[in-house]
């Protein structure tokens, strides 16, 4: 009898959020600095 394959989708979402949220914060801060090139 074969063992059922686990649904990994929640883990995939959690893993991508783990790295995606800090990355999004970094991009947001970068966007603020980029704006200065055109306003400064």
């Amino acid at each position, binding site marked *: 009898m074969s063992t059922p394959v686990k649904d990994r989708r929640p883990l*995939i979402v959690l*893993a991508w959020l783990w790295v995606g949220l*800090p990355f999004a914060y*970094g991009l947001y*801060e970068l966007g603020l600095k*980029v704006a*200065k*090139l055109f*306003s400064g």
Partner: protein
Amino acid sequence: MTSWAVPDVLDRSRSVAPPGWSRWLVPPAALSIHLAIGQAYAWSVFKPPLETSLHLSGTLSALPFQLAIVMLGLSAAFGGTLVERNGPRWAMCVSLICFSSGFLIASLGAATRQYWLVVLGYGFVGGIGLGVGYISPVSTLIKWFPDRPGMATGIAIMGFGGGALIASPWSAQMLKSFGPDSSGIAQAFLVHGLVYAVFMSLGVLLVRVPPDGWKPAGWTAPAPSTVRPLISGADVSARNAIRTPQFWCLWVLLCCNVTAGIGILEKAAPMVTDFFSGTSAPVGISAAAGFVAVLSLANMSGRFVWSSTSDLIGRKNVYRLYLGAGALSYLVIAIAGNASKPLFILCTMLILSFYGGGFATIPAYLKDLFGTYQVGAIHGRLLTAWSTAGVLGPLIVNAVADAQKSAGRTGPALYTVSVYIMVGLLVVGFVANELVRPVNPRFHEPTAPDAPARAAVTEGGAAA
């Protein structure tokens, strides 16, 4: 059998993916390491408070970063074989321990005002974490994504560029909260060490190597007659790879490409200010900071975009673009001078995107030429080109700019000579890329004719 030096739980055999494991869990595992160790590029945030509180010169306060980069190159070059042998989980664990404890030692150094401990901790111990961490996911990603190796390594190496984007505002905010004195710096180092340990643990827990013979569902390795001539189905060991002319051609092209990028990256803010100082639209401090941010964005996105493009057009062609269009962009800067600010920004963005792309595409180029057998170890050895370029690039631009300033020149004339040197370097890199040919079969690893056929395992774990 488990080596005595490697705890059983970290052994490669314990990290083989179970049936149903998704390969899309591997890029976040890699990113959790690269986004953390990419903090190295945000070291400059700590320089002014260290200089003030410990009465250091600018040269001394740069020492932890410089030692960390030297250790990155050395540990990647000499630790690559160990990383291949012991697997990605072991490597990520070593990276976590070294990188985090480096911060903890530096924290102790700042608290006790013993600067040598900051250098030892962040530079030496943390630098080993950088090197081992940088190469830790490379061969694993290539094995999970044989259909898109450029994209897979591009994601991870983009993370190294993204690490500074996160750390720079985060560290600055922390220093603001704790205070810029030695006690505040010590607390900031302590928090960095602890938070990065937790953040990187995702990689250690999640990373898995594919079972032998695994391939993505619905994907079949292209027949030898349909693949590009440079893509080899054979494997070459790290020991043999460095004996091939192909390795040294890639070393030269990487060194030239990185030197050309670092030349701008290292002096971006003063460069843009000097270029437009005599014009009707000079660049202020705030706009110069914006220019640095634009270059960071180009560098980071180039890692993903160009590396993914290489899966479609081939590695040799994409390096033709990096080196050829890079040289042309430098040439436009030299000819146009300060005539057009948008043109200057566009050209520097292109150069920096090629710089990032060059870093991110090189693992897939190595995989094409030398196979997946020891690609991580070969990549580690190739990173000595980065260390060399890290010295060459700033040296050329700074030395030329200083000499031109002494000669009484101002504006774009300060950089014209170094811009032409960069064009020359990129042409040398272009020629090195043209010289790349398939590896001579005498360097290939022997294949055992009587080896039992491995069952092909596809995505989802079902044996096919």
